[in-house]
């Protein structure tokens, strides 16, 4: 027992070093965001001499970030809710129900995972333009859902496969329809997976630049990351302002993660005490 404990403490050393290495860039970014452009160029690593919030307010005010922020919030939350709903429905059917063509359908979903956005960018833009969905919230939401649904279905399918069939059979005997099983059993049991895939999808959608750029050409509907990225001109000139934009964009994701990771951890803990 003591041997195990010692080895755990030994493991903690490299893990702490890694943790420091992951915190450092964030601190670095905060530090840069506080600097003037001149200070940054003369010495990038030195600590800022003052807590300057000008860069953050410049980043926020110069290009209508509040508007972009709202756009991102609308598009990302809608996409994630839709992704989790459709992903868990399909995942449940593909993992637990036997029906004709299920293997083919699963492979179809899987194939979607391997389509690089670049190859479909132009045709997709044309489809969206023809259906008048380009430059609308539902349009970008659909593109996001299509992009990340294969991943979501895949994860939910693997996760739901681990749920013993007896659970479902029991629920069926209790008189639940297939939909009832989905709603009353699969959704609650899928919580840890739904939370983690939700976090990842939120992060992917939130950080996306290319899809948002192509699907939302007008400034009015632009998302936050596109706004932040366009702070950097041709020659990545003003790094402190850009770093401020990056921080503005990162904070919501960090908050969501720190808030939700407890739920994931609870899911993990619940899973580990189940047996």
């Amino acid at each position, binding site marked *: 027992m003591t041997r195990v404990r010692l080895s755990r403490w030994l493991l903690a050393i490299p893990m702490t070093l890694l943790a420091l290495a992951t915190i450092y860039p964030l601190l670095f970014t905060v530090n840069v965001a506080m600097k003037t452009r*001149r200070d940054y*160029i*003369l010495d990038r690593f030195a600590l800022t001499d003052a807590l300057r919030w000008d860069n953050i307010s*410049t980043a926020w005010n*110069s*290009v209508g970030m509040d508007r972009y922020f*709202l756009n991102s*919030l*609308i598009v990302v*939350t*809608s996409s994630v*809710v839709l992704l989790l709903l459709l992903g868990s429905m399909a995942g449940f059917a593909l993992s637990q129900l036997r029906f004709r063509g299920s293997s083919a359908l699963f492979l179809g979903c899987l194939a979607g995972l391997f389509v690089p956005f670049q190859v479909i*960018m*132009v045709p997709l*833009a*044309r489809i969206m*333009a023809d259906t008048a969905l*380009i*430059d*609308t*919230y539902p349009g970008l939401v659909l593109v996001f859902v299509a992009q990340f649904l294969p991943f979501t279905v895949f994860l939910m399918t693997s996760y739901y496969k681990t749920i013993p069939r007896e659970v479902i059979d029991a629920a069926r005997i209790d008189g639940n329809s297939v939909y009832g099983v989905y709603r009353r059993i699969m959704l*609650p049991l899928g*919580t840890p997976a739904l939370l983690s895939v939700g976090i990842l999808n939120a992060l992917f959608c939130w950080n996306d*630049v*290319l899809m948002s*750029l*192509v699907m939302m*050409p*007008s*400034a*009015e*509907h*632009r998302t936050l990351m*596109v706004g932040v*990225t*366009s*702070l*950097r*001109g*041709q*020659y*990545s*000139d*003003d790094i402190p*302002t850009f770093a401020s934009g990056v921080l503005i964009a990162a904070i919501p994701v960090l908050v969501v993660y720190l808030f939700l990771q407890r*739920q994931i951890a*609870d899911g993990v803990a619940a899973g580990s005490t189940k047996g």
Partner: protein
Amino acid sequence: MKQRALWSAVLVVGLATAGCGSASDTGSSSGGSTDKLVVWDWKSGEPSAKAYIEKAKADFSAKHPDVTVEFVAQPFDQYYTLLGAAIQSGKGPDVMLFNGGGQIRDRVDALVPLDDYVAEDKQRLAGWDAFTKDGKTYAGPVTLQGHPIYYNKDLYAKAGLDPASPATTWDKFLADCAAIGKVGAKCFALGNKEGAGIQFWLSALGSGVLTAQEYDDWIAGKRDWNSPNVKRVFQLWKDAGDAGLNNDGANSTAMFNDAFALFQSAKAAHVIGLMSDVGHWKDFNEFLTPDKLGVMSAPVVTAGTTPSLAYDGGIGYAVAKWTSDPKLAADLVRSLTSTEALQAFYAEAGAIASDTTIDVSQAGPAAATIVGQLKGGKPALHVALSSKTLDLMGRVSQQLLSGSISVDEAVKQLAASDQAG
């Protein structure tokens, strides 16, 4: 219990989303209409371009009060990808910004020739050639872009050199570099990570190496890659690297803006910079102070050559062919190149504007020198090359610095690429 809390959270988010969605979905943009023009660029988001855009907008709305103009600043790294998608689907902005040279010439199929609309501006503005293909002009030039050789007068003085008279021959220049090396500074700040270093090198020094005839032939498309002088440009590049004139790790140093930062922090005495945008006299003035910043002509390598400043049209606005009223869009381009707007761009961003009537006497000696050299200037050598050859040249130049290729082999590859394109 936990589940219920989660579901109510999801529900709240969902409702909030629905609420926001319906509240803020205020009609989509009006594509192809005559009362609105959409402009794409990568400049209008920058604080230093604010005054410029405002002046241009004011100028335009004085002529067309009923038309609204929307500027959409796009991220530069995806700008041409995005533009490509717009061109292929035939839907995009009415007016768009281009870099001069290959980027616009490759895409003229999607643009309206502007010659009839901008005839009045032809005299006032310089830099048209970079936006011209087969005798037709496709954009109004906003800035001039070129490659002056900047030097740090302070370091010159420290090394016991005369800051007022930089070297005019290559041999003298090498001697000066040796002196500068003794006081702990590098001769050149070089960033060749993007392969841009060699482009700047070729254009900044070319006029001191190629004869006037060779230079003009090169620009006209008759490029003799086997000529000893062309090879010498690349040989000098390699020699400078081998002799340690550049900062360490030039192949992993970004031109933008790590190499410029080396010059700005006086770790190197020279840098081949830009005239507009960044890495230019205004940036350097800020760090070195205007009176410590010098601009020198290319040292003469081949006897009998007359060094000249290399410059072209930098950026310019073009009109898409799918716009509903080309005349209206061309008027916007004219507003974007009006003297008043360009004056503001020069003052705020330090751009050397295409309008040569702008007074730059307040900008310090470096800017004055540059503007003074514009008259005798010639188009930059690298701008005449295709995007593909430039891309190859970047890679080959890195190999030259690392020693994994000979000058002969490098020139051979470039010749093949140039002739294929």
